[in-house]
C-alpha cells in the first residue's frame, strides 16, 4: 500500500519534471510583463504580435529551406540504403550501417567544429547549403532506422510477385514498393524535418550570415526585452513540433497489414 503510493508520487514527480518546464513557455508567452517571474502580471498577446519581424521571418524561411532540403535528401539516401541492406545479401552491410549511424554518437558540437574546419580548409563558403550538409549527417541515421523497419515489415514476395507478373525493377518500385513504403517515407520526412528545424549547434557553426531560426533565437537572447517574444516563438514551434511528431509516429506504426491466413 505504502510502496504503491510512493510509486505514484514518483510517477507524478517524473511527469512534472518532464513537462513543467515546457508549460512555462506558453504561460509566460501570454504574460503581460517583460520579466519572467511570478506573480503573473496579466494576459496579453502582444508578444505574439511582436513576431511580425522581418529578421525573424527571414530566419524562419531559412530554417524551412534547410529543413525541407534535409528531409528530402536524407529520406532519399535512407531509402536507397535501407533497400540495399534489407533486399540484398551484401558483404559488410552491418559495417556500412554502423558507419552511417556513427554521427548519432558524435557530439553535435564536435560535428559542427569539424565541419567548419573542413569547409574552411576546402575554401568553401558558409551558407545554408553547408548547414544542410551538417544536418544530413545527423538525419540520415534517423531516416535509415525508420525505413529499414518499414522494409523489414513487408513481404518480399510482393516484389517478386510483381516481377512474376511482368513488371521490371523500376515499375515494381513504382507500383508496389513505393506505395507500400509511403507511410515510412512520410514518417522519415517529418522526423528529419523536425530534427533539422530544431537543430542549433551545427547550424550555429555552419550558417555564416544566414541565420536559421534557432540561431536567430539564440542571438535574440542577448536582449532581455526580446525574451517574451522568444517565448511566444518557442510556444509556436513547440506546438507545431508536437503535432508533427505525433503524426509521424502514427504513420510509422501503421504497418503493412498482416494477411489473414486461414478461412
Amino acid at each position: 500500500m505504502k510502496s504503491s503510493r510512493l510509486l505514484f508520487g514518483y510517477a507524478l514527480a517524473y511527469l512534472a519534471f518532464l513537462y513543467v518546464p515546457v508549460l512555462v513557455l506558453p504561460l509566460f508567452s501570454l504574460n503581460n510583463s517583460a520579466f519572467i517571474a511570478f506573480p503573473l502580471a496579466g494576459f496579453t498577446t502582444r508578444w505574439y504580435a511582436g513576431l511580425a519581424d522581418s529578421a525573424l521571418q527571414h530566419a524562419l524561411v531559412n530554417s524551412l529551406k534547410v529543413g525541407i532540403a534535409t528531409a528530402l535528401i536524407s529520406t532519399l539516401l535512407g531509402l536507397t540504403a535501407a533497400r540495399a541492406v534489407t533486399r540484398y545479401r551484401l558483404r559488410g552491410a552491418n559495417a556500412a550501417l554502423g558507419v552511417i549511424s556513427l554521427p548519432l554518437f558524435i557530439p553535435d558540437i564536435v560535428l559542427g567544429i569539424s565541419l567548419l574546419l573542413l569547409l574552411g580548409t576546402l575554401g568553401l563558403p558558409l551558407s545554408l547549403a553547408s548547414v544542410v550538409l551538417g544536418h544530413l549527417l545527423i538525419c540520415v541515421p534517423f531516416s535509415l532506422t525508420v525505413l529499414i523497419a518499414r522494409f523489414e515489415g513487408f513481404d518480399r514476395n510482393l516484389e517478386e510477385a510483381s516481377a512474376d507478373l511482368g513488371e521490371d525493377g523500376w515499375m515494381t518500385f513504382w507500383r508496389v514498393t513505393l506505395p507500400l513504403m509511403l507511410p515510412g517515407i512520410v514518417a522519415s520526412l517529418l522526423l528529419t524535418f523536425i530534427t533539422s528545424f530544431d537543430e542549433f549547434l551545427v547550424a550555429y557553426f555552419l550558417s555564416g550570415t544566414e541565420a536559421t531560426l534557432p540561431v536567430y533565437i539564440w542571438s535574440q537572447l542577448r536582449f532581455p526585452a526580446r525574451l517574451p517574444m522568444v517565448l511566444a516563438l518557442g510556444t509556436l514551434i513547440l506546438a507545431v513540433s508536437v503535432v508533427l511528431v505525433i503524426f509521424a509516429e502514427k504513420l510509422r506504426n501503421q504497418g503493412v497489414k498482416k494477411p489473414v491466413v486461414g478461412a
Partner: protein
Amino acid sequence: MSFLSVSKVSKAFGGNTVVDAVDLNVERGTFFALLGPSGCGKTTLLRMIAGFETPDSGTISIDGEVMNTVPPHQRPTNMVFQSYAIFPHLNVFDNIAYGLRKLRLPREELRRRVETMLATVRLEGLGGRAADQLSGGQRQRVALARALVREPKVLLLDEPLGALDKRLRDAMQIELRTIQRKVGITFLLVTHDQEEALSLSDRVAVMSGGRILQVASPRELYERPNCREVADFIGEINFFHATVKEMTDSGVTVNAGLLGIVTLPRANVAPGIAAGDTIALAIRPEHVRIGREGVAGEIVTRTFLGERSHFHVKIAGRTEPVAVSGQPPSGKDATLAFPPENLIALPADQT
C-alpha cells in the same frame, strides 16, 4: 524435347547443394507435382523455373526456349506464392489486372478479362473487395486468378493449399483440378503433402535431398515405388528384411525370414536388384490378408475408419508391429498372410 525441360540443373547456397543435377520433363497441359519433404529442394527448383534463382549449372527451357538468362518478368511463367503475395494496397480487381498493364487493353476488354477470371475462380462480384478483407480461401483464389489471367505457358504453384484448413483444402483441391482441366495450362505444383500430390496430379516427381527419386503417375508411385524412400513417403507401408536367392525371367525367389521363402513376379522387383542382395520387401497395409493361414500375431492397436479399420499386429521376431487395413477379427489374435503378388522388392537402404 518436352514442353518444360529441366536438364542437369544444380544449385548450391553457400556450399550447400540444394538441387543436385536434376532432370525433369513435363508435357504440355499436364498437372505435374513436385513432392518431397521440406528442405528437399523442390521450392528452389520452382524458383529457378520462375527466374527468382539462377541455376549454378544446367539448363531450363520452356516450349523450346532456353530460359536461363531470361529475367522473371519476361518468362512465360506465373506463380502462385505460398504466402499468396496479394498486393495489400490494391483491391481484388486491381490485383488481378496487375499483370495486364503491358497489354494496354481497352478499358472494356480489361474489365471483361478480369471478370471472366473472377468467375473462373468463383469470386464473382468481389472485384471491389479490399485485399485485407479476404478470407484465406479467397486470397488463394485471387492469387490463382492473378497468375492465370496472363495465360502463362506454365503455372507454378508453391504449396498453394498449405495455409488453408483441412476442409477448405479438400474443396480447393477439387477446384484446382477442375480449373486446370478447363484452362488447359500446364500446372507445376510443389507440395510436401503426398495426398495432395496424388489426388491432383497426372504425374508426380518425388524429391529428396536435392535429387529426384522417381517420376511416375500417382498409381505407379503407390504400387511400384522404385526405392524405400519413395515407398515410405507415399502412404503407409511395411518393410521386411529379405535376401534374394534366385532370379529368373518370370520371378524372383527371396528368403524373407519370418515370411519364409516366397517367389514374387518379376514386375514387382525394383531395378538394380541382383541375386544375393539384401533387400527390403514391402507390402501396403491393405494388401495384408487376415485369415487362417500364415503368421500368427496379436492385435495391439485398432483405429476404426468407417468401412474399414486400421490396426497394428505384433508378430513374433519383429519389433515393429505390422500395419494392416481391412476387417479385423473380433478377438485379439490375428493370422496374417502376405500374398506374393503384392510384395514389392526394393533395394535395402544404402546406409
